[in-house]
């Protein structure tokens, strides 16, 4: 494996479970600040980089999205086992939010509605090489211990910047007043 280890940089991972990528967009909305942060941090895992396994000894993992399938559960546990701090980033990770709106509906009915009733050709529920959905979508802290919760749909870039800066300074972060649900 050729992944470079930079001991002087804080190792950060990001992950995207059942969410819309909006929280990741809010991280990118740090704009030039993100390029400046690159001197202090190394993104070792996440949708923006090509790392193939969740690495060992990650300092901070930012997780976007709720838990909705067994794949999500497995990854969440892998992240917890290999991360110093786990941050639930955004309302889906914190409360399950919009993905949780399906919880009132049995999975079978949901899938029949999408793949049988709405479709005229080859009507069937896909099952070849695709994971089954869990009965309920749940927030991250129901599956693993979460150290920091950042609400928001998405959290504003300034809130993410504030939390990241406090973490980089070695402090347990306090949420700025700007942080709110929705």
């Amino acid at each position, binding site marked *: 494996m050729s992944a470079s280890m930079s001991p002087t940089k804080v190792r950060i991972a990001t992950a995207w479970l059942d969410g819309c990528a909006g929280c990741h967009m809010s991280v990118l909305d740090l*704009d030039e600040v993100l390029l400046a942060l690159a001197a202090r941090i190394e993104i070792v895992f996440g*949708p923006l980089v090509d790392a193939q396994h969740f690495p060992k000894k990650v300092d901070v993992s930012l997780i976007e999205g709720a838990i909705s399938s067994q794949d999500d559960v497995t990854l969440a546990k892998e992240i917890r086992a290999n991360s110093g701090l786990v941050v639930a980033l955004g309302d889906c990770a914190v409360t399950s939010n919009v*993905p949780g709106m399906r919880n009132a509906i049995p999975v079978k009915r949901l899938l029949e509605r999408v*793949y049988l009733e709405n479709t005229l050709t080859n009507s069937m529920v896909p099952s070849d090489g695709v994971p089954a959905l869990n009965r309920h979508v749940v927030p991250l802290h129901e599956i693993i211990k979460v150290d920091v919760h950042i609400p928001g749909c998405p959290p504003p870039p300034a809130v993410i910047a504030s939390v990241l800066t406090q973490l980089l300074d070695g402090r347990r972060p306090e949420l700025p007043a700007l942080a709110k649900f929705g």
Partner: protein
Amino acid sequence: MTLAPNGPAMTQRIVIPHVSRIEGHAQITIDLDDDGQVADARLHVTQVRGFEKFVEGRPFYEMPAITARICGICPVSHLLASAKACDRIMAVQIPETATQLRELVHYAQYVQSHALSFFHLSAPDLVLGMDSDPAKRNVFGLAEKFPELAKDGVALRRIGQHAIELLAGQRVHPTWIVPGGVNKPLAVSARDTMLGELPEAMTIALRALDACKALCAKFPQEIESFSNLPTLYAGLSNDQEELRIYDGQLRFRRPDGTLAAVVAKPEDYDQYIGEAVLSHSYLKAPYFKPTGYPDGIYRVGPLARLNAARCCGTPRADKELQEYRQVFGAMPQSAFLNHYARLIELIWSLENMRLLLENPSILDINVRAHANTNRSSGVGIIEAPRGVLIHHYKVNESGAITWANLIVATGHNNLAMNYGVKQVAQSFIRNGQVTEGILNRVCAVIRAYDPCLSCSTHADGRPAVHIDVRTPDGTVVQTLST
């Protein structure tokens, strides 16, 4: 790296469990025959979220805010398609300035989304190289080696996102776009700020286009093998067949350039588009109904839009379009050229932002129509950055959703992406010889489509090139990673 055949008569299966640097989660399976040649390859989209079902019972006016959560990359697209469907349910003609403001915010979204696709997601392949170190093959690695290019990408995306913020109040999931129009007129100061940022954006976009032209010469085999096939092309255009992204008619064009269909009004879409289920994917596969399934394969997105339209309709973009067609023909087919087409559209979007901002009527304060439920159904069609997006709702007499159908941009390309994965695998994998760089190319054909799999499916943060070699019964016999 060679994958040794696992016994004389046994085929091999290569699995790429996580296609990286795309907006969503997908897996690719490649089956090799006894001689180590590619027999088949397929794209699996591995999650579904069920928006079409769980929105039942919600008041229609909640739909823009709910469906925006399908995608945080192009929330403006869902907000617009949803609001247009709601306008139809209300049976209102929205104020002219509201239409202009919706168009403006959509062009701004094209700027940020196309910048993300080119600079953050695909430039690492194109500039650092398909075979470059996977640990550095990302936007941060790009920033180390080509800092000016990475800065350009960050700045261009910022200008697009900032325009959305100035118009709509926030960058991701704004609440400004509502059924009947928008909820606030444009302030003079916001207009002036946007106008002030356009020249920098145009300079960057033109620089990126020049770079892309030079890069195209370096990827002949990729151009030859990235979904290089004749299909129908679909996109919105106006009566003069100029490119449109907010309104216009949906046109289907054949690979020889002749028109296959013009969808007269949004409600007619289902006469032309059917949907099939693929057993191996949660992403459904739309097809052109008059031709039938699976031959009615068609594509959407930048390449398809430029093929479906006669021209862009703005001077600089049309000059670039002419040059592009001189080099690659009037109806280019390779998905690789999406990168080039995307940058022409970026220039076109910036030209249109200027036209809209310089029109004094953009500041008019009449921006919203009010009405209740006046129709039992509504369809909204727009061009998301990745292609045609359709929202179709039915409501009861009190305006609660009773049925919804969403056809997202990436779905239209599903059949072509599957074809492309197989084509590029067949072109590069010979005699069982597989390298990380080859598998990265298989992922890159998907990246060329800039798929938004979070749109109505799901996303998972696990990227990778990680190969499981399995026997036909699925047992893993060997695991390779780079």
